[in-house]
């Protein structure tokens, strides 16, 4: 479905240096029972965020007021495992619009782009730099510039470029999704289907 347009986002960030965060951690299977896309943000990182009684775990970053913002900076191989788009819904619903990592799982990355969360892949060194910057100043800001395809640590001006294909970039900037595109070429698809 249509989502908010993404152009330039400058904000503070939430650091999550853990590696191999799979989508079962982002949203455990038992919270996939809804038949509508509502309320997933409440269960984002559920088992890291709350204990069995439902009390917030103090040591988890989402329960730490020092950190906030629309950008999640994560350890490598983020979003592996299950294809559940619910994981990205939870991330979006919680308020994140951009996830930064040195490495994303494929399906997760596609899911992000399909619902309007920008996945930004940077070098491992740059991620480490960001983590260090947040440690020194939890309010350090990051600027993600989609048209320019660059990400900058605002305080120092250190910057890196990131890749995204033109088609997806246009979609993100305009808030379009793939179905709009596919419906527009339904004649071509129909012709193709007849040959199958």
């Amino acid at each position, binding site marked *: *479905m249509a989502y908010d347009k993404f152009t330039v986002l400058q904000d503070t960030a939430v650091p999550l*240096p*853990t*590696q*191999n965060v*799979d989508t*079962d*951690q982002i949203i*455990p*299977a*038992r919270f*996939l*029972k*809804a*038949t*509508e*896309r509502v309320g997933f943000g409440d269960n984002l990182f559920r*088992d890291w965020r709350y204990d*069995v009684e439902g009390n917030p775990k103090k040591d988890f970053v989402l329960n730490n007021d020092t950190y906030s913002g629309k950008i999640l900076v994560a*350890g*490598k*191989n983020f979003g*592996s*495992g*299950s*294809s*559940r*788009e*619910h994981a*990205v819904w939870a991330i979006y619903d919680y308020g994140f619009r951009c996830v930064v990592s040195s*490495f994303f*799982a*494929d*399906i997760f990355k*596609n*899911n992000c782009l*399909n*619902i309007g969360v920008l996945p930004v892949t940077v070098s491992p060194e740059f991620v480490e730099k960001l983590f260090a910057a947040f440690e020194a100043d939890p309010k350090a800001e990051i600027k993600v510039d989609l048209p320019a395809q660059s990400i900058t640590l605002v305080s120092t001006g250190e910057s890196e470029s990131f890749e995204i*294909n*033109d*088609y*997806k970039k246009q979609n993100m900037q305009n808030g379009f*999704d*793939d*179905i709009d*595109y*596919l*419906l527009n*070429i*339904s004649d*071509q*698809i129909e012709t*193709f*289907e007849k040959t*199958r």
Partner: protein
Amino acid sequence: MEKTTLFDKVWDSHVVKSVPSGPDVFFIDKHFIHEVTSPVAFLNLEKRGIGVKYPERTIATPDHNVPTIDQDQTIKDKLSRMQVEKLRSNCEKYGIELHDLGSAHHGIVHVIGPELGVTQPGMTIVCGDSHTSTHGAFGAIAFGIGTSEVEMVLATQCIMQSKPKKMRISVEGELTKGVTSKDIILYIISKISAAGATGYFVEYAGSAIRNLSMEARMTICNMSIEMGARGGLIAPDQTTFDYLKGKQYAPEGADWDAAVAKWSELKTDEGAEFDKEYQFDAADIEPMITYGTNPGMGIKVVESIPSTEGMEGSNKKSYLKSLDYMGFAPGEPVKGKEVDYVFVGSCTNGRIEDIRSVAQFVKGKQKADNITAWIVPGSREVEKLAHEEGLVQILEEAGFKLRQPGCSACLAMNDDKIPAGKYAVSTSNRNFEGRQGPGARTMLASPLTVAAVAVTGKITDPREVF
């Protein structure tokens, strides 16, 4: 002529058009849906005011969230019931074939597709489930998609995909006694890591792969996603054709012969190039087990958990966090550790061959007192065969409980959960934190190893017991 791979042949023949500096418009032959990842897709179709373009190309079954007891009764859990009812009403409304609870072909979507003969060589197959890669065993391009893509396929029979890179993994030689296809794939993942094939589509090749049955090939392709690959496939051959012949949706008569002729051409040309290649020797593979919280953290049952030597920074931190969750220490052996549960089932190892191998090995033995043993057939068809072949009786005499088909404790969406802190040795595919229930500690292994663990009550090398 240009030399191409099996993957190229299937991919390229399904591209409706390529978007300049963008993805391909990729045509999907068959689409599987289940109750968990489809409701929002249907809801969005409704919001857009559009319908399902080619309903005959989609097949549905409820599997993830269904109870594995009393399937003939109303589902007790309200949310699960609503999801299954939504699936029913959506299938009814749009004319989609549904294999409902209790029907002859109900089961885990990746088990029933092949059983029905819906899955065929050269096809493109998607499903809102990452283990769709299972169907690659037939020489199909099959992979998991998100709900937005489910919506795209329902609406247009296409998705927008950039072509992945190509990897070939060859396993040559003969497997030794007690080693199964599950051990092959756990071994491969342990070597190239849980992210090692991200961005790739894998072709499995080599004599050890060719010698496997279709069931065993499915186990391998199934876990391709656990090393990050979009999917994995194996060139179709006589084993594939023999499996498909006579299946409900397989072609018949002259159509069959034409299909086999076409399918026989689906192979990688000699000299075709891959972006990456790995070669393994079957003789090096031994019974495997995982000790950590991703499927890449696997070792031979006889080995010790790796020490932290040479690790630093966030690598080391993540490693220790994982071992802490599992209650293990670096450097200690896994053999001999006490286990609480065993689970035989899932789209990885819930097929008849898996149940046969467990039954054969526990025959006349008893499960250990400390073990709760669940067997969940992948489908009604598997369940039926297990009864007919007398396997159920053998298993029940050994103290196993046979439940009804579904995903069950593979992802613990229903009531089949491993309690917090307990150890489960499981034939499923994911050992993530909480995968089998909050706090559950999962160790992945082959059905054979699981059978050995069930009998001894602790982590055991199956070769020592049988």
